[in-house]
Structure formats: C-alpha cells, structure tokens
C-alpha cells in the first residue's frame, strides 16, 4: 500500500472532500468497477455535524480513497446504490447506527426494534 505523508493527521489513504449535493456526481466520476473496488460506507458524527463517507480502493495504485461530505442533522442523504450496486446494505446499516435519513433505507435492518436508536450518534440525540 502506498505510504502517504501524515498530513492533516492522515496516514495511508487519500481524501476527496465534497458536498452532499455533489457526492453522487463525484462518485460517478471516480467509480469504475474494473479499476476501483468499492470497500464500504461509513459515517462520522463529531457532535456538531455529521459526515457521510464512502471508501474505495484504486486497484492499480493500491491506494485507499475516502470520499466524504458533511451534512446537518436531519438532512436527507442521497443513496449511491444506483451507481455502486452493493452500497445499499451498508447505507441501511449506518442509517440505523447513526439515525441518518438515507434515501431508500429500510428501518431496523441492522438493529432490532427494541435496540437503542442511533447508538453511534453524538449530537442532536434522537427521541428527545
């Protein structure tokens, strides 16, 4: 794996920062299943705002790539599962874990209905 200088606290992956409006366009631009491997979806909540994160691997250079976009609590997040077919499962997973309103989500896919809601969310708690 390519070693990158630890700039901005990042060790061994590259980052593309974009906005929620442009994230689908950005992913459409970079994603080609023959050249880019889709790793997964993640989210991050720092207590003030959230981030949606898509992980990829550039096969030729073996570099992990993170495409991320910040958004506010309650904002609707577009799904990329029409561009990256397998993304839906992990989108539904993080929708449950962070209480994100992702387009097309199935509720209680990853958590049982009795589970605490959005356990990984820090700010703007659900169910207040």
């Amino acid at each position, binding site marked *: *794996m390519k070693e990158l200088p*630890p700039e901005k*606290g*990042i*060790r*061994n*992956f590259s980052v593309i920062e974009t906005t929620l409006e442009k994230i689908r366009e950005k992913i459409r631009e970079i994603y080609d*299943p*023959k050249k880019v*491997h*889709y*790793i*997964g979806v*993640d989210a*991050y909540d720092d207590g003030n705002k959230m981030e949606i994160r898509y*992980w990829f*691997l550039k096969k030729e250079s*073996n570099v*992990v790539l993170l495409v991320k976009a910040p958004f506010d609590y309650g904002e609707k997040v577009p799904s990329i599962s029409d561009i*990256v*077919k*397998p*993304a*839906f*499962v*992990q989108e539904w*997973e993080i929708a449950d*874990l962070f209480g994100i309103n992702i387009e097309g989500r199935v509720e*209680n*896919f*990853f*958590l*049982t209905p009795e*589970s605490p809601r959005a*356990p*990984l969310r820090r700010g703007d708690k659900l169910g207040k």
Partner: protein
Amino acid sequence: MASESKNKTREIQIKEKVYTTIPFGSQHVALPEPIKFIFDTENEIVKEIKFDIAYVHRGIEKALTTMFDFRKAPYVVGRVCGICSAAHTIPCAVVMERAIGIDREIPDRAKAIRMIALEINRLQSHFLINGHLAEVCGYENVFMHIWRDREMIMDLADMLFGNRVQYDVVCVGGVNRDIPKDKERVLLDKLNEIEKSVEFMEKIFTKDRTLVSRLKGLGVVSKEMALEYGIVGPMARASGVKTDCRVEDDWGLYKDLGFEMVTMEEGDSLARCLVRVRECYESIRIIREAIKSTEEGEISIKVTANPKYEAVCRNEAPRGELFYYVKGTGGIMPDRVRIRTPTLANIPILPEVMKDVSYNDIPPLLMSFDPCIACTGR
C-alpha cells in the same frame, strides 16, 4: 376416484403455478448463525428474496471508542467472531500502530507469528465451512471426518497460543508470546498431517460424483458480476478476480515469502469450495516459510504514544477483505473505529445469485458463500 382428483389438482397446480412464501431462518438447520431470508417461490423456484441480519449486533465499534484503552482493542475485536478471531485482532493492532506511527518498526518475527496465527485461523475456518457444505449436501460422514481433522488445527492453536478459539497473541506493537523451537518442530510435524487431510478433502470435492454434480453450476457468479458487486475473498477468487489483501496490504511478509494466489474461473459453488481447499495448501506453505524465515528474537516494541492519526488496514480474513479504519485524536481511546467485514461485502449479491434457484439448492448455495453473521453484526 380420489387419486384421479389428486392428479387433476397436481396438473392444475403445475399449469397455474404455485406461489409459496418460505421463511428460512433465523434459526435453521443449515445455518450456523442467525440470518433470516424470506423466499417468494414459484413452483419451488426462488423468485424474490428478502433478508434480515438484525440479530447479533453487539456495539463493538462503540465499545472501542467509549470503554476500552486502544491497547485492549485487539483483544476486544477478537470477540467479534470466534471463527475469525485472529483475522480481526491483526488489522486492529496494525491500524492502531499506523495511527500511532510505529507500524514500520514492528519486528519481522512478530510479523511472522501474526501470519502463522492468521493462516491457522484460515485453515480451521476453511475446514469448518467445507464440513458444513458437505453436511447440507447430505454427507454427514464427510462433515464428521473434516471436523475431526479440524480438531488437529484447533489443538495446534492451543499449543502455540494457549487457546483454541481466541488466540489473543497479537498486541499493539507486535505479539505477546514467541513460538519456541520445540513447538516449532511439533508445528511442522502437525502440518504434514493437516496436509493429508486437505488432500482427503480435495479428493472428496473433486472425485465424488454426487457432491460434484450437486455443486457444479450452482449459483454461478461471473467475473463481471463479481466486479460489479465488489465481492471479496474466496468468492471473488472463484470467479476469476485476482484480489487478496495478503499481497495488497503490507503488514506481513507475504510478498517476501512468495505468496501465490489461488483463483478459479467457474464462479460456481464447487469453485468456491475448491478455492478454499486449495488455499489450505498455500496456508500450510506460508506457515512453513514463516517458521523458516525468522528466528526467535524480538517480538514487540514498546508503545509509548496514543493513536493520533487517521489510518486504515485491509486484511485477508478467511472470508475475504476485512477493513479497519481508526481515527485517533491523541487520547487513549480512538474517536471512531469502523469495521467492514467480508460478509457485509458479499451479502448484496446474494439475492441476485439465489434468484431462479430451486429452493432445495439454497442450503449448499448459501454455505458456499460462507457467510459469517457474528462478524456482520459486530
């Protein structure tokens, strides 16, 4: 008269098509772990699939950021899954080392022991699933033979690491115990016996006419589909996709030991099974090489700092690519840990592959996917 009417009913049923909804799981004899499928069938041919994986979530990602010091993290993630415990502890330790900035200082002997732990883990996992596969095909005696031989691997792990299931040998900074010379000799002897068991397994899955005809052509995943759905591990390699994190990530010494990737082109259930069987040979070879290439010596470095960077690690678990991400902020607990397990990557293609398959072929097809639900739930 009654039988005439019965025949007539049967004819009507065949002509008119019989639609049945069949729940499969969450507890089912063919399932080692809880996952639920609902199959909508037409004359026993699966047409629509819904699935539910919400049974074993344990909040491990959250626990790693709220309850445990980063030094304990590898031991915590070893509990994500009993079958792939070493496969989790290694990338967790590596990603913490990367987040601290000490990953280049790990001694070679520690890397070799990590590789031995991972390959022993892979061997027992491949034995486990191939035994299950034989069982759901109706070969209970083969299942018992394979699982009997798997015990040799479990005992080997016990001898080397002090535990059959949770090895807990990997720590941040290296490993916490060396393999002494006398145990190395026992290990090499045992590997010869395990190799014979792999030969037995290969013979069964290539020569037995019933098993071969049951698995050949079942649930074919083409190379294009495999790439499109981003599937990982033996599943991808059985479809001709050359991907293996053992050569793509560099935490170990795989490249130095001349690792050879096992791939097949057929993409069916038999190919998936045979890729796992043939990977056992490669695992045995890697263990032998790892023992030969390093001597007893330094096995860890002192860890004096906390994780402060963001880092990732990709490891080849028995089921495929296991991805770890850590965001450190300089504290004793990371700010975020993300674990993307191989089954999570392989689940999206399941409904596509199960479509138009006869319901009675679902158990072997599912076993050939080797799903690990404990990992998926975390």
